[in-house]
């Protein structure tokens, strides 16, 4: 149960980290979205890339949980 609570917390904290990264790094980097279609496209592409990275991170968490589960039974 503690492992699951920790997993959910880590997933949430990392999602908040992704949102902070989008707001403090990607958005300032892609200023001028109103006038430049390229900037708008870049903003969406970078944000999606970060979100995809978060999904991969969730995937890694799932793998970690499965490993932990196996170790638990082995140990």
């Amino acid at each position: 149960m503690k492992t699951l609570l920790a997993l959910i917390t880590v997933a949430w904290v990392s999602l908040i980290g992704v949102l902070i990264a989008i707001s403090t790094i990607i958005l300032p980097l892609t200023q001028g979205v109103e006038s430049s279609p390229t900037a708008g496209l870049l903003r969406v592409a970078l944000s999606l890339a970060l979100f995809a990275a978060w999904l991969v991170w969730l995937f890694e968490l799932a793998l970690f949980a499965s490993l932990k589960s196996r170790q638990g039974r082995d140990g």
Partner: protein
Amino acid sequence: MSVVGFAFLVLLSFAASWMLTWVIVKYVRSARLIGVDVHKPDRPRLPKIGGLAFTASYSTVMLLHWLLGGGIVGLVLVVSPLVAAAIGLLEDVRELNPWVKPLLLLLPGIPVLLFSAYIPYPIIPLVGSIRITLLYPLLVLAAYTVVANAVNSVDVLNGSLVLSTLPVLILLAAISWLVGWETPALASLALGASLLGFLRYNWYPARVFSGNIGSNLVAAVITTVAITARLEVVTLVALLPHILNEFFIIVSMGGLKSGKAFAARPIRVVKGMIVSSPRLGDPITLVRLITLQNPMGEAAVSKRIALLSAYSSILALMTYLIGGVRLR
């Protein structure tokens, strides 16, 4: 709509679901509509379309609300969940290919797109409103299939569907109401009330299962509320236990596969207690991880799933608050 009218519809939803579930428990005997409760020593055979009861009660209440002026949002909150429920009923009576099911579950998103019941500028906490006019419709379609599979993956024990989704529905109802989205708030509460009526017969030891019809309806209502009330990220956080469970299953089974076609089981039942499987290669699920250290009764595992869901709903509320409370 007045608070009295709102409360009347919610109570009607609860009462109708309770009565209709009783009818299903008492009268459904067809072999195609019966499933085996594999977690009980005597393996009782129970009706597996109990979700039909809360599908009917929820839809009737939301249809009434639409007729009383629920608007386009009210209409899609009837149509999209009904499409998802119909796909679930189809799966309850005949096995669907594990690759066809996700494709079929794109369909509930179509009414949302057809009636333009969405704003393609999702409000992302800490980021603000982002414009993704072309991408958003694709995300709408994908959301239904992802959420339906995730919610369905947790509907494995008596009461687990209801207990794992009630905190999410209460959260969505509260935020929608505060922000001024009356129809999504009513949909969340009406479904929550319907689920409570159903829980009377689905709680351990269950006398009825919700079936895919039930889990698909719940998932579609949550998704439609998230889209129409612009609570996409908040809902994503609230559904973290469901999404993680789906990830566990996909990772440990090596892709999208039907659970029925997979011989290995994540848990075993020993003297009425759920025991985590000792075999290394068996699928990893939320239930297996919960019972990893100690064998537990089915009701105790369902309560722990509810606790996880309540915890992630609190995190979802914090996400909403961190993002800055907004008015519609």
